């Protein structure tokens, strides 16, 4: 079943600047763990941020869970965002807050202003946060400050925060680029595992082609704002890679 339909997506930040995305279309099925590969500057981050409207596209359409994303405003947009978990390249944690508070902040979309003000999250959220921290292997670090952790641990906090949202889609923006190769594979493996356990589809920007081939079932190749490849991982040939990374080869 199709979760996400993107059609002819275009974006430019200002009138006098070139288009970043030049008419991208693709679908994500509910069983997909899909990679977006491409050289830096190809528009991967922008594409993924359009889907939960952290970035406003110029034209095109995005249909998520049967809803027209680009028509949403205010509360409806926030309700959509809370159904979409996002994991960031640089973790985007609140450094001065504890690990637990960072994970609980994943529930803010479900929490009223008064409860937010006193950081008084309901008991069910607290139990869920503890269970998730246990799942990502951080039970011993619950009350530490986020900036006391190592890179791999911080990304695990990021994962737990995204899962707190009980997401129906995961957006992963280069989740392992800030980590060293060994930790990268561990973290990617953990995300892959949890996504299949919870049966959540995922859309993942990834720079490392090898890692993409290992962890994803479908791959989209972007180059300079154009889609150059879209298919099962097994069908990706070296010729396709050459085309996607043409700029870098030259």
């Amino acid at each position, binding site marked *: 079943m199709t979760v996400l339909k993107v059609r002819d997506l275009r974006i430019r930040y200002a009138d006098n600047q070139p288009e970043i995305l030049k008419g991208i279309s693709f679908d994500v099925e509910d069983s997909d763990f899909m990679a977006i590969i491409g050289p830096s500057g190809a528009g991967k981050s922008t594409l993924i941020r359009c889907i939960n409207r952290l970035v406003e596209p110029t034209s095109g359409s995005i249909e998520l869970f049967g809803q027209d994303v680009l028509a949403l405003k205010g509360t409806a947009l926030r309700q*959509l965002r*809370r*159904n979409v978990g996002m994991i*960031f390249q640089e*973790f985007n*944690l*609140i450094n*001065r807050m504890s690990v637990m508070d960072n994970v609980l902040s994943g529930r803010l979309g479900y*929490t009223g*202003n008064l409860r937010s003000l006193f950081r008084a999250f309901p008991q069910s959220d607290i139990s869920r946060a503890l269970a998730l921290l246990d799942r990502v292997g951080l039970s011993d670090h619950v009350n530490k400050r986020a900036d006391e952790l190592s890179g791999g641990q911080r990304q695990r906090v990021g994962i737990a925060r995204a899962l707190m949202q009980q997401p129906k889609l995961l957006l992963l923006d280069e989740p392992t680029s800030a980590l060293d190769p060994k930790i990268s594979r561990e973290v990617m493996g953990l995300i892959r595992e949890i996504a299949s356990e919870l049966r959540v589809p995922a859309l993942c920007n990834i720079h490392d082609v090898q890692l993409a081939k290992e962890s994803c079932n479908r791959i989209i190749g972007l180059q300079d704002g154009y889609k150059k490849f879209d298919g099962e991982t097994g069908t990706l040939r070296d010729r396709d890679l050459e085309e996607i990374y043409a700029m870098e080869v030259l």
Partner: protein
Amino acid sequence: MASLDIDIGRVEGQRALVRQRHLKMAAIWAVVFAFLAWCFHGTIIQDTDWSRIGGANGVLGSLGRFLALDFSLLPELVIPTIETFMVACVGTVLGCFFSLPVAWFGAANVTPNRFFFYPAGRFLMVLSRSVHEIIWALIFVSAVGLGALPGILAIAMRSVGFISKITAEAIENIDKKPVEAIRAVGGNDFQVMYYGILPQIYPVVLATVIFEWDINIRRSAVMGLVGAGGLGLTFFRQMNSFNYGGVTMVILAILLLIVLGEVLSHFLRKAVI
């Protein structure tokens, strides 16, 4: 040799540059001293009636009057000292409340509107700092009458500029990544501010508030000079009744309060940061 000529030429060029720089510095100092001489002439020579001061003996005599401490004033100092301290505290807290919207308006990245609120916020910051606390106090005394309230308001208004300026700068320099994360989980504007921005700026803001509070104790001690209560009023009365020993007592009380403030702010700063 040709290469030697070039070297000499370069040295000569550098020497000329150095000479030029010295000349420029000399010119600047000459202007400063000429200006200084004019200021000295205008204020101290023209405007001072030396015969009335009465030479060194006269000055020493006037100074001596301040040394006969009037300990009988001690009980009368307790309440004004407490009042001064309280006015500083309440004024600082009120100033913080006023600073919140001003900092919000005046921070370029979160301001609700760039064309109206942003310049308005910036203007309030400048206005608050460029009006001296005594003038603020005069304005509020004429608006709400005598008492502690005009002092509190004057201190609050005078504090807004510095607190909100530093806060706005801190907001402008925040790391945007946590803000993006809170927006991505579906947080509303309040949650973005409270979880994304506030944790990043609060150490800076608290240090600034403590710094300002420390200065406000000094300011609070003079509010009474224009009718706003506290130690300033006692000072004014002692001065008007020519009780110079009493004046010294008031100054000692002010010093005590300020030392207390320094010590407290030192510990507060440690506790907070």
